[in-house]
């Protein structure tokens, strides 16, 4: 039996007097390809931010790789791509390489110097996401799908064991979305990276995911594998027709 790499227990979180998470618990195991779904405002992004230390719960505990989150220091083991990753200042004058290099912090530390090996690692992850040819381009000049790949490369440069993504396909076109899920599948199966994503696009992701967590009324409920959609209509309160992109 594998032990969880991330464990959130009995999480309570309030926002402006309203309970968002109410005794929600979540366990993430190595190799998982997990989708967290649920209606707007159900606390999906909040739970993800609590698991990555970006928000603190009112009550409850989070353990990362066996350590209490308050004592955890190895942040390079965790990659996170926020919901608005591609809604940054599009005029920011940084190249693709500069953006990815910025996340070398966990490898080189405060005031540490970037050496040849680090640059090679940057090139390796850019190659992995198919963006090496764009390394000298300004990040703001790329399409939404290309920018998303750069942010994945940025997260990968610290060699994370788990990658959190908050609605990663928002604002990218259907073709880029298909490529994106193919890349996620590759990272999960070939690179052994555990993947957790908050998404509304359960149809597109369902072919690849191993676990579905639904957030409803402040609690996390586990569903079977992605192709089992039973119960989603009840959860959303209306008919849910998953869209599978095969083109």
């Amino acid at each position, binding site marked *: 039996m594998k032990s969880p790499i991330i464990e959130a227990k009995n999480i309570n979180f309030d926002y402006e007097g309203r309970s968002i998470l109410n005794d929600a618990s979540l366990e993430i195991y190595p190799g998982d390809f997990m989708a967290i779904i649920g209606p707007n405002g159900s606390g999906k992004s909040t739970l993800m931010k609590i698991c*990555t*230390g*970006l928000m603190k719960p009112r009550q409850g505990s989070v353990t990362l790789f066996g350590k209490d989150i308050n004592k955890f*220091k190895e*942040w*390079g083991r*965790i990659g*996170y791509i*926020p919901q608005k*990753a591609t809604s*940054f*200042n599009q*005029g*920011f*004058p*940084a*190249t693709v390489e*500069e*953006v990815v*290099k*910025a*996340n*070398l*912090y*966990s490898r*080189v530390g*405060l*005031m540490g110097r*970037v050496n040849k090996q680090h640059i090679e690692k940057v090139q390796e992850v850019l190659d992995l996401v198919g963006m090496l040819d764009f390394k*000298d381009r*300004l990040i703001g000049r790329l399409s939404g799908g290309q920018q998303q790949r750069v942010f994945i490369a*940025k997260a990968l440069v*610290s060699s994370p064991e788990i990658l959190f993504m908050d609605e990663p396909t928002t604002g990218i076109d259907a073709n880029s979305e298909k490529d994106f899920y193919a890349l996620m599948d590759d990272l999960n199966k070939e690179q052994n990276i555990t993947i957790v994503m908050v998404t509304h696009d359960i149809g597109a992701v369902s072919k690849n995911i191993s676990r579905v967590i639904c957030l409803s009324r402040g609690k996390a409920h586990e569903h079977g594998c992605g192709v089992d959609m039973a119960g989603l209509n009840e959860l959303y309160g209306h008919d849910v027709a998953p869209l599978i992109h095969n083109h």
Partner: protein
Amino acid sequence: MEMLQYDFMQRAFVAGILISIICPIIGTFVVLRRLSMIGDTLSHASLAGIAAGMLGNFYPLWGAMIFSVAAAIGVEKLRKNFSQYAELSISIVLSASIGLAVLMISLADSFNADLMSFLFGSIIAVTGRDIIIMAGTSIFIIVSVLLLYKELLYIAFDEEGAALAGIPTETLNIFFTVLTALTIVAAMRVVGILMISSMLVVPVAASMQISKSFKSTMINSVIFAFLAVVLGLTISYYFNLAPGGAIVVLSVVILLLVIGTKKYILKRIV
């Protein structure tokens, strides 16, 4: 170069060259973090410090340094209270600084030529002591930015991501605002309190028009600032003008030339 025979002009040029390096370096981060107004706020805080120096009869630049660093820390602390309205913290500290400056000036009864030189900049006012302090401050700023370059870039681009990567963003934000305060104090003698914030912003704005990376944005903005300072000081010497005004107007002219040239080239390509 006849003007360089004079000690005061040599000092003005040394001071000007230091300013043309540190202002755009700090300004690049200031502009990209959308904190352009912070220059005005901290310079007005330093005005209160100068008036305090005149009132307490101590070296005015120490007063400027203490007041502007205190204002810098105040801006960062307030920024947390208004996380969705970062510019509000800047406006609050700006208002408090202006109020305090006016009170100090009236208490010290110091609305005199010396104060005017701080407001509008002066070539002849730069002393040997000013140069030593400016050089020390500039070296500290340049070394700090070189050592913290990747951290400051990450925070400017994505503060949340930088925090998750383990970068101590709160501490570095305060440290960066203190660097901005020190830059303003170093530059105020030549450029003048009223025009310092332009030196932080305008060369960077010109550079962003043509630069193809973060590093080149910083380097090009230093080149533009250097041109504006050297030409501005020369013009102010020969035409007896306030150096701050000449330098800032030239910076804007350079910006307009860059925009115009870029448009012309783009038009020819299309």
